[in-house]
């Protein structure tokens, strides 16, 4: 359960920072009138905050999966799944889609409609390529004997990457909605906020993907072993 606890510790730090700005030690019964809400803060758009909270939930979900994975390592004789090389190519593809979306944000900011369209298209295509690549990787693993119903390490690989893929798919649907709106109202600056949200979501899923790879390849294992010796 180390991973989820570490993840929660980060969130607790963020929440604690936020709470520290809410004047928790003030005596509200002594104050009357309408004070400024939060002294210096420039308000975050609700959509952005909403996505932030949602990403925290997704982070919790994958941290939980990671914890379950590590719990299994303790409980059973464990053998990691050798990742096919394709997975690394997929990682590159996902990275590029994240970059394309970042271009899209810049394009939207500068009002360049054509560049925005092209970057979004490239982002979507490379994301699709990632998903196709993942399914191919699954097939390769299955044919080389690491089936879904086999050892738990393999099952975990399918489960976790599958859920990750589903989240990417959900992101594509959202991106499609943004695109539809853009097609009806071709004003790039209007779409800037929405495109930025897409990019943020992609970056977050890329980050999660990289952390998951660390888990699957056992990079994190030495560190985790240390934690286990402390926390079991």
């Amino acid at each position, binding site marked *: *359960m180390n991973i*989820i*606890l570490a993840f*929660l510790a980060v*969130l*607790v730090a963020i*929440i604690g920072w936020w*709470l520290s700005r*809410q*004047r*928790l*030690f*003030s*005596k*509200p*019964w*002594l*104050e*009357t*009138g*309408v*004070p*400024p*809400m939060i002294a210096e803060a420039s*308000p*975050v758009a*609700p959509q952005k*905050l*909403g996505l932030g*909270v*949602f990403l*925290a*939930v997704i982070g*919790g*979900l994958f941290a*939980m*999966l990671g*914890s*379950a994975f590590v*719990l*299994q390592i303790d*409980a*059973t*004789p464990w053998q990691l799944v050798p990742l096919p090389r394709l997975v690394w190519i997929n990682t590159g593809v996902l990275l590029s889609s994240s970059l394309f979306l970042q271009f899209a944000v810049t394009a939207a900011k500068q009002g360049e409609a054509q560049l925005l369209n092209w970057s979004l298209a490239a982002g979507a295509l490379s994301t699709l390529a990632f998903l196709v690549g993942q399914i191919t990787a699954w097939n390769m693993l299955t044919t080389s004997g690491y089936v*879904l*119903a086999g*050892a*738990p390490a393999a*099952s*975990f690989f399918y*489960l976790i990457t599958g*859920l990750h893929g589903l989240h990417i798919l959900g992101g594509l649907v959202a991106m499609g909605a943004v695109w539809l709106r853009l097609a009806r109202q071709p004003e790039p600056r209007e779409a800037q906020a929405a495109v930025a949200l897409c990019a943020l979501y992609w970056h977050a899923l890329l980050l999660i993907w990289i952390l998951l790879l660390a888990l699957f390849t056992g990079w994190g294992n030495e560190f985790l072993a240390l934690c286990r010796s402390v926390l*079991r």
Partner: protein
Amino acid sequence: MGDIRHEANAELPPLEVPDVMPPHAHGWWAKYVFSQDAKYIAVQYACTALAIGLVALVLSWLMRLQLGFPGVFDFITPEAYYQFITMHGMIMVIYLLTAIFLGGFGNYLIPLMVGARDMVFPFVNMLSYWIYLLAVLVLVASFFVPGGPTGAGWTLYPPQAILSGTPGGQQAGIVLMLVSLILFIIGFTMGGLNYVVTVLQARTRGMTMMRLPLTIWGIFTATVMALLAFPALFVACVMMLFDRLLGTSFFMPMLVEMGEKLSYGGGSPIAFQHLFWFFGHPEVYIVALPAFGIVSDLIAVHARKNIFGYRMMVWAIVIIGALSFVVWAHHMYVSGMHPWFGYFFATTTLIIAVPTAIKVYNWVLTLWRGDIHLTLPMLFALAFIVTFVNGGLTGLFLGNVVVDVPLSDTMFVVAHFHMVMGVAPIMVIFGAIYHWYPKITGRMLNEAMGQVHFWVTFLGAYAIFFPMHYVGLVGVPRRYYELGEPAFISTPVGGLNAFISVAALIVGAAQILFLFNLGWSLRHGRDAGSNPWRATSLEWQTPDTPPRHGNWGESLPLVYRWAYDYSVPGAAEDFIAQNDPVTPEPPGGRL
């Protein structure tokens, strides 16, 4: 006067969310069925939760019939009995309590109490309800599939949950249960995002966090916790679904069932328990914190006194919320996990008793030198304190690792958690419904029916669960279809069990009176006026009762004070509304 006094209307801070009227719905369907107005969604949530709760109530009757009068009712087979307890538990905890506190009260009260026109994402909010309804329907469907619903106990522990020795294990029952939970979590996440962002961003001008009523603090903290805890249940459900349908072995070690080797191997049943309780313990507080918040407000309003120690109450809510994530394994003291855990989790668990106790003291101290109106909400609040203190104190038995060893898995545990997270929060739900029904409908609930409902429910529920502790202390295990008369029991508990069962039947019947009252008063209730309890918080200051779409008419309210200005010295009345700019000058100054 006060230390800090901001000049009224000197320079208004900007709104974080622009004040736009949410779009009006056109047509009957969009207005009443696929409504995006949080107030309608709240009522939809609450009605659905109460309806499915009624099913769970009937299930509890059936299981009590078996326990009180074993062998009398032929149709209650062991299979049926285990199905009853499983569905009763799951429905009550998830589909009733969680849904009604967050989906029901959260949706209704958050926008009104923070001074917003609606939730921030109304469409997502609507979706949240419909997915919840779908989850409930899937759950209900499991009663009608071959093999019936799952009988794995509400904890759904593998391996038995998905094996043939358990009702529904190798049939559709467990699958539908897991699918329903997954849907519930997805739906809840949509609602939860709304509640959090609305509290953070849509508060009206002047409504600082430290001016929020404790109801909002409770619901807000509980929502944040739920958003972080439900993923654990989600993961556990998905993994078990894989085990059941796709032959993976996440939770399944190599095992021999009824002499037959199964194809599973390599998984760990304990891992499920960790995931389940990582959700399950925060879940207790996801239900309790909104109850804490609401009961604080009920006591303050009906004792005409500010809640004692408001700051402490806020800190306690936050601290309890954070600590509840590091106590989960106290449900697993006898699960066979490493004994080292016992020290850690017993300590954290007993530490959490301190902030909880502070909350209890502050409720009781609020009554001290108050002006206590013994209205129905106040009566239910008092009943909450009694049952919560009782159930909380027995928690100290079960949290203290070595004391838990003889008591775990006995009826003592059943009595404890029913008292603390069954009866106590439900008392708050009733109190809250009697309190806010006038705002929701414009009419008061019938007082005579309410009195009968209160006395039967409070005394009846106490008579059910207080003696049940002693049934457990004698050594009667929980989840026993039939115990018989084993030698270790010197005084048979049969009579006591029959008494408990009769009390359960009577208490259940009183709830039907309550539901009748809800419908009857809608038409025949006394006209309530806009602020029948003379309360300070914003929801009572709306221009219309019931509040219309957009809540606030022309312009959003401005908040000049905290939510607890009751009986302020020098004031003409015994309450000053939060949006009332006039502050009295008392003779001796305010503290």
